[in-house]
């Protein structure tokens, strides 16, 4: 069994209205050094196989086809074997 974590990030060029709004909050709190807040997604799940290659393919395809939209997002993942 493998534990996967996927982080989905909006491409730098794509507007992130949520990040912008949150950063306004940062300014209100006095965090004046905070710049370029961007909001992404963190997703974790298990892949029930003993074969790392299968697990990796599945994580990648799942991320490409459903978890992210390749037009506006990039993703990175980690995979860790668990008992």
């Amino acid at each position, binding site marked *: 069994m493998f534990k996967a974590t996927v982080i989905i990030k909006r491409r730098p060029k*794509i*507007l992130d209205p949520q990040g912008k709004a949150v950063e306004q909050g940062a300014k209100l709190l006095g965090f004046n050094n905070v710049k370029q807040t961007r909001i992404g997604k963190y997703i974790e799940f298990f892949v029930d196989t003993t074969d790392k290659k299968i697990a990796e393919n599945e994580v990648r395809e799942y991320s490409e086809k459903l978890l992210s*939209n390749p037009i506006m997002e990039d993703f990175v993942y980690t995979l860790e074997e668990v008992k």
Partner: protein
Amino acid sequence: MKPKFGVVVFPGSNCDHDAYYSLKKVLGYQAEFIWHKDKDLKGSDVIILPGGFSYGDYLRTGAIARFSPIMDSVYKFAENGGVVIGICNGFQILLEIGLLPGVMIKNESLKFVCKDVYLNIENRENIFTKSIKQNILKIPIAHGDGNYFTDEITLKELEQNNQILFRYVSSDGKVNSESNPNGSFMNIAGIMNKKKNVMGLMPHPERCCNPLLGNIDGSLIFRSVAKHFLN
């Protein structure tokens, strides 16, 4: 022959009944609901993907609905030239499945916007607007994620192929930022595919078909499509 409209029902659709009612009871066409788990389009001439919040809009708007069993059939239908109209959430589903280019992101204001907007008809060489006489339509919007985005190359293609169908304008037809309710690229409110048989728009034409409601601009789009099948 009166055209038959198939209205797809996803879990979380909430404009399916409005569409059905407007098409069947107000405009007098044939209409039938199609369940998202089915595969049969029931002989529909036109498929409507209605507005709402399919699958709670989790992950991204329309991202999960596009994998519904019915969407395989809708995809093939569209590829073979079948007429498909995606309204609001339906438009978002068409973007996610790739029948139309681009993506929808959150409104620039971060607010859910619900109001009448004015749309300029940018193109008439298509069945959706061919028989509409007026240039500007008043149709309501109701969305939180209607901020259309695409890259420069795709935008150029959209322009070159005359795929931009509706743009948000002021009541006298000016394209400006004041008339843009959500921050959409180029004030885009509705687009078509290259073959011009698939159309997506954020505004809700099904909400302004009944004269009792004081506005029938939405019906003009459905009438234009129906005319294509009547001829």
